C-alpha cells in the first residue's frame, strides 16, 4: 500500500504544480495551460513558462493588480496539457468550472491554440496568443472574437525570408540556387508549401527539396544531398531538435553557402551557446530589436527571476501578452471578461516589444519575421513595421 501512495504522489507532483499560495484578500485567479511534457515541452520551457513566473513575481511584488482602486494579488493555477489538444481543452474546462479562474492565459503553439479556441470562446476568456503563427487570422477572429494574434502570419514570415535572399541576390552575393528542406510535421509542411511558390515567383531555383520525419536521429544524408546540389542558400523549415542537428551536419559537411536559414529554435539562447562563433550569420525565424532599452531591461529581469535568458522570437511576445492582459484589467478597472476583451480591442498597449495595437482582425500588424546571429546575439533583420532592424550579414564559413 505504501508503495502505491508514493507512486501516486509522484504522479500528482509530476502532472500538476500549484503556484502561489492562497491570499486572504480575494486574489485574481489566472489559469495557465501549456505543455510541461510531450513533444513541445522543450519549447514551452524556453518561451512560455518562464514568462508566467516572471510576470507573477513582478505583479505580486508590486502588491497585485489595481482593479478599480482595489489591489488584488494574482494566483496562478498551472496545468500540463502533455502537448495534447484534448488535454488542453479539458484543462481549460476544469479551470473555468472547478477552479473558477477569472482568466485563462492562451496555450502554447499554433496547434494547441487553434484546438482550444472554441472552449475559450465558450467561457468568454480573451485568448491573447503569443506563439501561434497562422494565415487564417481573419477567419479565426471572425469566428472567435476574443482571440488575439501577436506572432504574425506564415506568409509574411516566409515572404520576408525570401525577400532577404532576393536582396542578397540583387546585391550580387548569392545566385539563384536554393536548397530547401522541411520537417514532416504540420508546421514544416505548411511553411514549405507556402515558401515554394514564393521562391519560384521570385525566380529562385530549388535545386534540392525534401522533407524528413520528426525525430530523425541522423540528418547527415539530408545535408550530404543538399551539399551535392551545390546551392547558394540553404533554407530549413525545422523544429528544435533538427534545427540543431542540421546546423551540426552543415558544419561537419562544411556546407559552403552565403545564406543559411533554420526555423524554430534558431532564436533560442541555447543555439548560440551550442554553436558559438559558428552561429555567426545564421538566419532564422523571429528576431527582436536588441538595442531597445525595454527589451534589454526585460531580458535582464527574465534572467534574474527565472535563471535563464529569453529567446529572441516569441519570449518577448509571450511577456507582451501578459502585459496586455495586465494593462487591460487595470485600464478597464474590472475582471469582467467581456469588458476586458473589448478594452483590448479598443486600446494600444506599451510592451517590451514596443507598442501593440490590434487591427480590426485582432491581429498585431507589426512583428519580427527574420533574425540573424550577429556578434553573439540574435538580432532582427526584417519585420512588418518594427524599428531597429540591422543590416544583413553574409555567412562566411563555419569557423
Amino acid at each position, binding site marked *: 500500500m505504501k*508503495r502505491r501512495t508514493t507512486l501516486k504522489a509522484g*504522479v500528482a507532483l*509530476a502532472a500538476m504544480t500549484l503556484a502561489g499560495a492562497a491570499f486572504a484578500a480575494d486574489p485574481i485567479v489566472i489559469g495557465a495551460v501549456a505543455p510541461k511534457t510531450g513533444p513541445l515541452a522543450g519549447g514551452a*520551457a524556453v518561451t512560455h513558462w518562464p514568462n508566467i513566473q516572471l510576470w507573477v513575481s513582478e505583479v505580486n511584488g508590486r502588491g497585485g493588480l489595481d482593479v478599480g482602486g482595489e489591489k488584488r494579488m494574482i494566483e496562478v493555477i498551472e496545468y500540463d496539457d502533455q502537448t495534447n489538444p484534448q488535454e488542453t481543452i479539458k484543462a481549460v474546462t476544469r479551470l473555468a468550472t472547478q477552479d473558477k479562474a477569472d482568466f485563462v492565459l492562451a496555450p502554447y503553439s499554433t496547434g494547441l491554440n487553434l484546438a482550444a479556441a472554441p472552449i475559450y470562446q465558450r467561457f468568454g476568456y480573451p485568448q491573447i496568443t503569443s506563439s501561434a503563427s497562422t494565415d487564417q487570422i481573419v477567419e479565426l477572429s471572425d469566428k472567435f472574437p476574443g482571440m488575439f494574434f501577436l506572432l504574425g502570419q506564415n506568409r509574411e514570415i516566409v515572404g520576408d525570408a525570401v525577400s532577404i535572399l532576393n536582396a542578397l541576390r540583387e546585391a550580387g552575393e548569392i545566385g539563384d540556387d536554393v536548397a530547401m528542406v522541411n520537417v514532416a510535421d504540420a508546421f514544416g509542411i505548411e511553411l514549405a508549401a507556402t515558401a515554394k511558390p514564393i521562391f519560384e515567383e521570385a525566380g529562385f531555383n530549388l535545386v534540392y527539396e525534401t522533407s524528413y520525419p520528426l525525430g530523425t536521429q541522423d540528418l*547527415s*544524408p539530408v545535408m550530404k544531398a543538399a551539399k551535392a546540389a551545390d546551392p547558394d542558400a540553404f533554407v530549413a523549415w525545422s523544429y528544435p*531538435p533538427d534545427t540543431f*542537428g542540421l546546423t551540426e551536419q552543415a558544419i*561537419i559537411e562544411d556546407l559552403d553557402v552565403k545564406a543559411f536559414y533554420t526555423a524554430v529554435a534558431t532564436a*533560442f539562447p541555447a543555439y548560440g551557446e551550442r554553436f558559438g562563433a559558428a552561429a555567426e550569420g545564421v538566419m532564422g525565424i523571429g528576431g527582436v530589436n536588441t538595442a531597445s532599452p525595454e527589451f534589454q531591461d526585460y531580458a535582464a529581469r527574465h534572467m534574474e527571476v527565472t535563471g535563464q535568458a529569453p529567446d529572441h522570437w516569441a519570449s518577448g511576445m509571450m511577456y507582451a501578452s501578459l502585459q496586455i492582459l495586465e494593462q487591460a484589467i487595470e485600464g478597464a478597472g474590472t475582471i469582467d471578461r467581456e469588458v476586458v476583451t473589448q478594452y483590448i480591442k479598443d486600446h494600444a498597449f506599451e510592451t517590451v516589444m514596443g507598442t501593440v495595437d490590434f487591427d480590426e482582425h485582432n491581429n498585431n500588424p507589426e512583428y519580427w519575421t527574420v533574425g540573424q546571429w550577429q556578434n553573439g546575439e540574435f538580432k532582427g533583420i526584417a519585420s512588418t513595421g518594427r524599428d531597429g532592424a540591422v543590416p544583413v550579414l553574409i555567412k562566411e564559413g563555419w569557423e
Partner: protein
Amino acid sequence: MDIIITGLILGGTYALIAIGLNLQYGVARIMNLANGEMLVAGGYTAFALYTGAGLSPLLTIFLVAPAAFAVNWAIYRVMLRPLVKRAPNRGALEQDSILATFGLSFVMVGLMVWAFGGDYFNYAYLSRRVEIFGDGFGLNRVVAFLCATALCAALFIWMNLSRAGMVIRAVAVSPDSARLVGIDVPRLSAIAFALGGAVTAVGGAVLSTYLTLDASTGVIFTMKALIIVIMGGVGDIRGTIVAALILGLGETLVATLIDPGLTLAAAYALFILILLFRPQGLFGRRQA
C-alpha cells in the same frame, strides 16, 4: 561506401538505444516502456557533468553505469518483483509489466521535468569532421559507433564465455528449467534488469554528444528500441546488433537514394517484413 559507413554509424546509434532493452526483456521478461526515459536520464547526467564540471562524456559513463545499475536494481526489487511473484504465466507478466513501466515512464518524465526543467539540452563534444575513405563524418558519431562496438562486444563475450553470462542465457532460454539446476532466477533477473538499465543509460550518455534531448523525448527511443529488439529476436544480443545495423543501413539507403521523408516508412516496412517471415525475430527461438 559513404552510404555503408553512414548506415553502420546510425546502426551503432540504434544498437546503443536497444541493447539494454534486450537484456531487460529477454532475461528479466520485463517489457520496459520506461527504457527511453532511462536513456534521457543518462544523457542529462553527461550534459550536466560536461557543462558543469567539464567532465568528458566518455568518462561520465563510468559514473553513470553503476548509478543506473543501482537505480534499476531498486526499481526491479521494489516495483517489478511483486508483479513477477504474482504473475501466473509469462503472458500475464508481460501485460502487467507493460502497464507498470508505462506508468513508470510518466513518473520519470515528471521527475526529470522537476529536477532539470523541460528545456532542450545539448552541447558540443567532438563535433568535428573526420574523413573516412574521403567522405566526411561527425567525429562524435564515429566515437559513439566505437563505443557501441566495444559495448556490444564486451556484452557478447561476457554472455558467451563467462559463467555468469551463461547463467543469464539459461534464464533467458528457460526460467523454469534454470531454477531446477539451482540458478537463483529472481536474483539473476534483477541483475539482468539492472544491467540492461545501466547499458541504456550509458547509451544515453554517449548519444547526448550529438543528439538534442529533452525530458519528454524518451518515448521516441523506446519505440525504436522496441522495434529493434523484436526484429532481432528477444533475448539474443546478436539479433539486436544485426537488427540495429539492418535498420541503420536500410534507413540511410532510402534517405540517400530515394527520399529522407521515407526513412520511417522504410523502417516500419522492414519491421513488417521480418515479422511476416520470421515472427520470432532474426535470432529468436520459436516458442513452444
